[in-house]
């Protein structure tokens, strides 16, 4: 039991650490001298090792240990970052991932010869006694600094003694001179290889009454790089991360009576609280608990709105009674509170897209290397938040679109040079919120989409007749979302078989979103995805068929019309078509499809909704439209079974249940497709 708990905790932790490793390594490749980053990667590897040891997965311990060795040597500058090394380390991360998957599926790891190969490769890297290039910024040539300490006018009573400080300064370099022209001024000259930040760190505990100026001097000329010391929390934070023994200064200052015990403890606790605030600002919550919470709050909202309805009826009955006024006002404020509560609870499920987006750095790097292309993935709006369920299901379609950008969109460096473009291609991944929607844009500055090729492929597949000249540009571009269309000249491992874009669109429509494309030849292609903020709530239109009320997702509704007699045509006496401003769309009678009884059988008396599913339009006949509603979706198969054409149920204001239509499936049922 305990083992299981440990294993579960480990699995949860390792997932994050793997992501951190992967992201860290990919960005390390771009900034090989970022030692902060190396430290971060090292810590991630170390955490994995520690967790694996605790949970008893020693294969992982052994494996990560070698990675850690390399990272440690990088950290201590005994090795330098190479492209090969990053590739090997990333492969090693993949092994750890695989091991993790094995653990979660069968709680043990099998020996695998390929693990050994990768481990051996890592060990080879370790033995590479490559000399470190001399251009590392950390190993600077010796520089001279002038440090000026000046007591402020009222600082004299501090009885300031600079000697402990001078001693501390001498530890990081050579003090060439100390001039003390008057009791409030010290002028220290220091020769050191350490960066200016190291000097600043010494003065963190100095009181505000002393002004400190550090200047770099080359020869006798003073370089205008001035640095005032600030004793605010940001410097403390840097201090906390730096490798200097902060306590020591604190202790010295304390011994010398320069600061009181309280001040020292305060400063130290600031550091500690800074560290703590970073680690305790998040808690892990089982998503099942969240779902329950969302459900309960949804019920609360319906419950309150039912009471509110009853209260209004009571008020109408006893209109003269002031108590009934009080009842209505207090219930209305309760109603507002419960809605606010619902909104807040929904927010709990939201997570930033950052983590999903960051994973694509690795994808782009790997494919670009494989294809010999140079590509930068740039991101913005990564703080945009989306329902966790949406994000999880968005990962696959995004993956596919980005693969497409890398594979088909961006040209090879030679091609790009020929077109006068920067050798390095760019892919932008952008997220933003607009109203109740999240918009995600994937764009590249590649070659754009060749319309003629799409038309040719569509003609071959029998999707269009003729050369496509009768279609609008937008219609042509949208053909790439049809099954079997590919414009790739050669089929690669990654894409080009023409399967995929139709799946991408279906995945996004399953999330009740939609995808658009725009493309300029020679300039690039942009895919825009609209998504609802959450899957738990749907904007719906309530419609009536006979005695039943059904909910149609608002996103699928193009418009609602009441057709005139002349707008309805039949084919072979049965197939009904409705003329919607010049285009004929097939008519589906919902009551026939669902076998519901209704008096509305004449389309000119009933209402017709024009719906869109996967780019196809059709008309759905209902009795009447009742109005819009934000519906909390409940799964039908929780207590029952899935019903074809129904995506779920929702509870109406009066407590009745309304079924939510699955327009995508409805279209398939109506037109006899499976």
């Amino acid at each position, binding site marked *: 039991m305990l083992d299981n708990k440990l294993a579960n905790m480990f699995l949860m932790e390792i997932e994050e650490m793997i992501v951190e490793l992967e992201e860290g390594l990919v960005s390390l490749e771009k900034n090989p001298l970022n030692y902060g980053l190396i430290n971060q990667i090292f810590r991630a590897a170390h955490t994995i090792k520690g967790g694996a040891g605790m949970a008893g997965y020693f294969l992982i311990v052994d494996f990560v240990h070698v990675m850690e060795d390399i990272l440690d040597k990088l950290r201590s500058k005994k090795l330098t970052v190479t492209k090969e090394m990053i590739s090997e380390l990333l492969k090693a991360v993949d092994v750890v991932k695989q091991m993790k998957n094995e653990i979660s599926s069968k709680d043990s790891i099998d020996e695998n010869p390929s693990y050994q190969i990768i481990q051996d490769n890592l060990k080879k890297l370790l033995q590479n006694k490559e000399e470190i290039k001399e251009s590392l910024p950390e190993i600077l040539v010796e520089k001279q600094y002038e440090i000026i300490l000046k007591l402020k006018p009222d600082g004299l009573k501090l009885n300031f003694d600079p000697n402990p400080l001078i001693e501390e300064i001498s530890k990081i370099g050579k003090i060439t001179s100390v001039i003390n022209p008057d009791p409030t001024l010290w002028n220290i000259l220091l020769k050191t290889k350490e960066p200016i930040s190291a000097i600043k760190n010494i003065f963190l505990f100095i009181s505000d009454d002393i002004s400190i100026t550090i200047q770099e001097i080359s020869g006798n000329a003073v370089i205008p790089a001035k640095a005032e010391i600030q004793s605010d929390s940001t410097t403390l934070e840097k201090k906390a991360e730096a490798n200097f023994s902060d306590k020591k200064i604190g202790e010295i200052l304390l011994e010398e009576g320069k600061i009181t015990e309280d001040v020292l403890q305060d400063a130290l606790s600031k550091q500690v609280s800074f560290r703590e605030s970073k680690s305790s600002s998040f808690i892990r919550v089982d998503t099942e608990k969240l779902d329950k919470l969302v459900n309960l709050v949804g019920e609360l909202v319906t419950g309150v709105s039912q009471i509110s309805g009853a209260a209004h009826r009571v008020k109408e009955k006893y209109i003269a009674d002031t108590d009934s006024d009080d009842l209505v006002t207090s219930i209305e404020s309760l109603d507002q509170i419960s809605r606010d509560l619902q909104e807040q609870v929904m927010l709990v499920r939201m997570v930033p897209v950052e983590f999903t987006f960051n994973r694509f750095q690795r994808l782009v790097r790997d494919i670009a290397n494989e294809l010999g292309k140079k590509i930068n993935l740039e991101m913005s709006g990564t703080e945009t938040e989306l329902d966790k369920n949406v994000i999880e299901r968005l990962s696959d379609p995004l993956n596919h679109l980005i693969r497409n950008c890398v594979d088909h969109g961006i040209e090879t460096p030679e091609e790009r040079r020929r077109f006068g473009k920067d050798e390095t291609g760019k892919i932008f991944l952008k997220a933003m919120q607009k109203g109740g929607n999240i918009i995600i844009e994937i764009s590249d500055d590649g070659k754009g989409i060749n319309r003629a090729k799409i038309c040719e492929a569509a003609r071959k597949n029998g999707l269009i007749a003729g050369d496509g000249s009768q279609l609008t540009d937008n219609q042509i571009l949208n053909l790439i979302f049809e099954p079997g269309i590919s414009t790739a000249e050669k089929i690669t491992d990654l894409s080009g078989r023409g399967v995929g874009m139709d799946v991408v669109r279906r995945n996004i429509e399953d999330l009740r979103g939609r995808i658009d494309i725009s493309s300029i030849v020679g300039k690039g292609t942009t895919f825009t995805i609209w998504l609802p903020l959450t899957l738990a709530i749907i904007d719906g239109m309530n419609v009536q068929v006979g005695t*039943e009320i059904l909910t149609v997702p608002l996103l699928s509704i193009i418009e609602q019309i009441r057709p005139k007699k002349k707008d309805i045509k039949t084919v072979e006496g049965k197939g009904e078509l409705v003329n919607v401003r010049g285009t004929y769309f097939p008519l589906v009678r919902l009551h026939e499809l669902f076998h519901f009884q209704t008096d509305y059988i004449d389309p000119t008396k009933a209402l017709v909704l024009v719906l869109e599913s996967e780019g196809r339009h059709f008309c759905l006949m209902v009795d009447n439209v009742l109005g819009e509603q934000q519906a909390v979706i409940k799964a039908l198969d929780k207590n029952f*079974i899935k*019903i074809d054409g129904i995506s779920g149920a929702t509870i109406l204001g009066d407590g009745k249940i309304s079924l939510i239509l699955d327009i995508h499936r409805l279209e398939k049922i109506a037109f006899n497709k499976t």
Partner: protein
Amino acid sequence: MKDDTYDYIDDTFDNMVSSEGDQYVTFTVAEEEYGIDILQVQEIISYKGFTKIPNVSSFVKGVLNLRGAVVPVIDLRIKFKMEEKKYNKYTVIVIVVVSGKTMGIIVDAVSDVVGLNKNEIQPTPEFAAKINTDFIKGMGKKKDSFIILLDIEKILSFEEFQQVSAIIK
């Protein structure tokens, strides 16, 4: 010593249960008395209307809102191919939990809770008439009453619902 004490308690508990037998909630459908194991019954509610579900077996009358849960309801009269009866405010729905799913069964009226010992239950006999006895666990006899004990899991077999929905596809 300690173990003996527990054995003693266990024995007493067993005796208590066996003296009362298993408990059944009994109800009437078309003047016949039926019984369901009380452990499977969650609650009993009155009829307040349903929402129809398209394209399912006719005995699935629809879904109702049970404190926010969407619960399907079946009519035993239709299931047993008996004459249908109009629902009114005295129509009762027995809410049962079958393999983790909550469902409602429409019955004419709920009568009682009875305890039946093993010797008060006789196995399902064969019938001359062509009726489905698959979902009958046995027959309970107590004094004058004769109770048909239902195997609720078999009545609410999800395969049956699914078969219907497969036909539509």
